[in-house]
């Protein structure tokens, strides 16, 4: 898998921390591996929307990667509840279902972006950079491997 220029938090130079929410273990592992290539750290994982809300409060990640179709509570409702409690939350929807209505509903509930599965790592990297905006910057060359500091 291609390695990307590691992204770090501008405020403290630490790796960007991700919460990965998907009912599929396979999808979570795949995304975790991908964010590893971005120099990121997995702060937590959740298999449904309800657990995602708890995990967000516990881990306070920089980015949430959120599936839509999940048991118990779907991703769009989870986004709404996370953003209501934490307006600063940056949530990127990651779903195989890319309907206009789904995308629109997620954005209206507070998601910052949408990426369709199968996820192209280069597309996700650019989206993460865009969503982090000023908060996430590439690590200076030769100073970070993205995982330790």
């Amino acid at each position: 898998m291609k390695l990307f220029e590691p992204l770090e938090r501008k405020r403290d130079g630490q790796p960007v921390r991700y919460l990965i929410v998907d009912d599929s273990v396979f999808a979570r592992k795949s995304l975790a591996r991908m964010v590893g290539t971005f120099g990121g750290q997995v702060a937590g994982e959740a298999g449904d929307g309800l657990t995602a809300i708890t995990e967000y409060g516990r881990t306070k990640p920089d980015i949430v990667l959120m599936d839509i179709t999940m048991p118990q509570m779907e991703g769009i409702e989870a986004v709404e509840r996370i953003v209501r409690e934490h307006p600063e939350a940056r949530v990127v929807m990651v779903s195989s279902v890319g309907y206009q209505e789904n995308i629109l509903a997620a954005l209206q509930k507070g998601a910052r972006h949408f990426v369709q599965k199968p996820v192209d790592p280069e597309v996700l990297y650019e989206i993460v950079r865009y969503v982090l905006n000023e908060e996430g910057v590439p690590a200076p060359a030769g100073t970070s491997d993205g995982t330790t500091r």
Partner: protein
Amino acid sequence: MKMDLIQPFIGSLDAVLAEMMKAAVVIADVSMEEEGYRRKGLAAVITFKGQIEGRIILDMEPRAAATIAACMAGREVDSSEAIVPETVCELANMVLGNAVTQLNDRGFQFRVFPPALLTEDQCAKIGSDSEATVLCFDTPVGAVHLDISMRYHSRPSNERSPVGVG
């Protein structure tokens, strides 16, 4: 079943397999099944409801699923590992998601449910009440089957309520 409804599934399966396996895949056969579903390898089912209702079953040889799981995990994966059936579920999710997205662009409204692994017992109860289209793809690591059964409930919303332009 109308071919224009099946086409998005063919394109989606082709694209998802090629992307995940990083290899060319070839459609080997398309057939109609009227009898109950018979599992061939590891199978996952996803149902969808809305203007078109039905289900898809993605069925693949464990070796093929293990190969894709290994690509994603970045390590060797044995076909007996738990991540292998998970892989089949997630692939089914991607195939259905991409196909219904295309159908949604044509005006059909859906609700998609999470995938579930299909056991022998469940197979016996599936498919005996409706005709299914079965696509078979050849991949470098084994065959992949997609069994599609669906029926119309209503015409797409963009046919029922056309929106004027200009």
